[in-house]
């Protein structure tokens, strides 16, 4: 989540502010999209082990 500006509410967005805001938003977006799935979430390491236990394709391989 990007930090909010310390200043009071703007009435218009200028190009400089927009550029800074978009760069911050992109950092957040990139962090989220490259984050590894949690172990027990679908697609995670432990989840794959469970699938492997039941012999389901795409299971975790050792």
């Amino acid at each position, binding site marked *: *989540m*990007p*930090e*909010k*500006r310390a*200043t*009071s*509410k*703007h009435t*218009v*967005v*200028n*190009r400089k*502010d*927009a*550029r*800074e*805001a*978009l*760069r*911050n*938003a*992109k950092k*957040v*977006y990139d962090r989220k999209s490259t984050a590894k799935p949690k172990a027990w979430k679908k697609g995670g390491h432990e989840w794959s082990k469970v699938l492997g236990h039941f012999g389901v394709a795409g299971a975790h391989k050792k």
Partner: protein
Amino acid sequence: MPDYSKQVFLNVPFDTRYRKLLQALVFVVHDCSLTARCSLEKEDGGQIRLEKIYEIIESCRYGIHDLSRTTLDAGHRLPRFNMPLELGVFLGLRRFGGPRQRRKSCLILDKDPYRYQIFCSDIAGQDIRSHANRVDTAIPAVRNWLRATLPSSLRVKSASSIINRYIAFRRQLPNAARYEDFTVTELTFLDYRTFVEVWIEENPA
């Protein structure tokens, strides 16, 4: 002085239901290296609304006119005619204006392919496309029209590339707006357009 041959007049509804389409149209216009203009950009209360629209239409070589809201109002049982009127001004200027104005080109959008024949059949022969109120239909419609209209020396991205770029932009917009202490719905036309311009500069194809 903005470049006449790079300005696109958006004659579209401004209601909240249409906002998703308006914002997509602004993006596709800018992603094709043009500038979107509309009457929302001028907040001068002292100026007569139609005068303001004349000025913008005169400064734009291209126009996108959406007639999808030509429907009966539930309360008054009358249609809104602002968009057909502004289309008429655009076509009139193209017909009777000077050499520069005669180079004007426009796209007419509606929600269904042949609905205009019922309420405005005289526009037959113009470039008319339907969007079914869907962003993923509106973007290719505008992109393909621009591809056919713009000089061939200008590079226009594929429709799928523009749609993917638009999705990436929309994913970042809420956080960017929040950073500026706005919500996405609070962004005015000019604020939104500034975000689009800057995002495209930061993310060239």
